[in-house]
């Protein structure tokens, strides 16, 4: 009975092929009879199976048409060409270059470009939106109690521009403020035209100075200075008018004016009169036209020597030139001393 477990229904085909019912072992018969009714059915099935196995040789096998193969081969060739074209595009295209699988990932252009872009974005972000710098600016913007009143306008300006101001810059600004104050409050003892121009420029810059922190400008100083400048300007205009008259006389009557004597009257006053004793000459003297600024002791002495050396007719001329003593005091004193 143990052999019952060695056979399965699947093995019946093998038994049918190999053995007739009479050739079966007793245990095989017992097994076979579980699936067939009797020995006759077994033998009948055996014959049928033999017939079925013989059928393929009886049947006429058909063969595929040649056209089928031709069509398939043509399709295969077309597909091959298409595949080769795709492969070529994959190998030579932009994406193939960008992500070249033949190289390691670090050497692929796509990876390198992406890394570069990441670095640039990071740098831009840090430079633009750094939270550390912002904190620093906020801290520096905090006003001290002392500065709160004086720096009000500047503080507002800082809030708008959000400029980070260092301590050194603040010190420099303070130094500039001190210099500006010194310029404004400097006593005006010697004022030339150049000085007037410079002082005028300074005054033009006064509005900016007004904005400086902690400096209280005294408007009275500016008023005094304005008056002085106006006065200087008037004097210059008057001198120029006189020179025009003088030059007119010169062109009319003289070729050269030789100063022979200078008398300074009322030297301490704001306005005084400079008296020249001049003579006409026709000699070969220097042709430098005479005006107030070119009257120097050197020229004076030279002219004297020239007069002595040459024998020319002279006519004494007295010219009164109103001039500001403070402006030409040094020159006049030299002239006076020479005289």
């Amino acid at each position: 009975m143990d052999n019952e477990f060695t056979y399965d229904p699947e093995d019946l085909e093998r038994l049918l092929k190999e053995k007739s019912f009479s050739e079966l072992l007793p245990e095989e018969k017992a097994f076979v009879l579980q699936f067939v009714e009797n020995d006759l059915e077994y033998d009948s099935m055996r014959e049928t199976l033999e017939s079925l196995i013989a059928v393929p040789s009886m049947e006429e096998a058909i063969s595929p048409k040649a056209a089928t193969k031709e069509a398939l081969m043509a399709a295969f060739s077309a597909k091959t060409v298409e595949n080769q074209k795709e492969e070529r595009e994959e190998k030579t295209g932009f994406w193939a270059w960008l992500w070249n699988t033949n190289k390691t990932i670090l050497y692929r252009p796509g990876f390198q470009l992406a890394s570069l872009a990441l670095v640039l974005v990071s740098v831009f972000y840090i430079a633009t939106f750094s939270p550390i710098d912002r904190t620093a600016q906020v801290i520096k913007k905090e006003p001290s109690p002392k500065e709160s009143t004086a720096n009000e306008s500047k503080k507002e300006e800082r809030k708008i521009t959000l400029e980070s101001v260092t301590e050194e810059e603040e010190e420099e600004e303070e130094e500039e403020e001190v210099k500006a104050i010194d310029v404004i409050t400097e006593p005006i003892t010697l004022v030339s035209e150049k000085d007037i121009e410079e002082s005028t420029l300074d005054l033009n810059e006064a509005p900016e100075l007004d904005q400086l922190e902690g400096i209280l400008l005294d408007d009275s100083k500016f008023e005094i200075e304005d008056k002085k400048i106006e006065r200087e300007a008037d004097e210059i205009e008057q001198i120029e008018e006189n020179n025009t008259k003088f030059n007119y006389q010169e062109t009319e009557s003289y070729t050269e004016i030789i100063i022979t004597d200078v008398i300074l009257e009322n030297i301490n006053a704001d306005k005084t009169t400079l008296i020249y004793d001049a003579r006409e000459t026709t000699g070969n003297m220097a042709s430098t036209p005479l005006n107030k600024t070119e009257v120097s002791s050197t020229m004076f002495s030279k002219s004297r020597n020239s007069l002595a050396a040459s024998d020319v007719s002279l006519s004494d001329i007295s010219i009164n030139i109103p001039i500001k003593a403070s402006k030409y005091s040094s020159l006049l004193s030299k002239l006076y001393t020479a005289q």
Partner: protein
Amino acid sequence: MAVKDIYKELSDEELMDLVKKSDSNAFSAIYDRYAKMTLNFFYKMLWKDREKSEDFVQDLFMKIVNKPELYNSSRPFKTWLFSVANNMCKNEYRKAEVRVSAAPEIFASAITKSSNTGDKKIDKDAFIGELDEALKEMDQVKRSTFIMRFKQGLSIKEISEVLECSQGTVKSRIFYTIKHLNKKLGHFKNIACLTLLLNTLI
């Protein structure tokens, strides 16, 4: 040795690897090896419709042309090819149930014609006709199992791989198919002897 002879010596799997690399000679070799076999399989499965069978063979190999990567090299090519063919037949059965139901009439008329002649060849044709009719009455799975086993010569193992079932299931199906055919074709018991005789005469 000619190039084609070299391809003939290669296994199915080796040929398919070359087909994947667009080797037309390999494709030609694999077609020559299996075109006739698959055509006859379709011919038996599709009610002996020659044109349809030719179309099915072309469709089957077009799958290889278009997507050879569908074939997994770890699996025997023959069983893969027959599983694809079997699935095509299954789909065709589903699509054309009307034609399937009409097919027995065609076979019956063919059998009637052949039965009237009365000589040995007619007995053979009659046997084949009745066999086809008997197979027609079976379900598609048993039918394909029988055709693959007795007409295409596939082994039990190959059939089990094609149908994706155990070898025991295949053997069992074959046994019950034989039993069923024995009842239908019992009166042709001497057909085997007749076949042997015919082969001897020829």
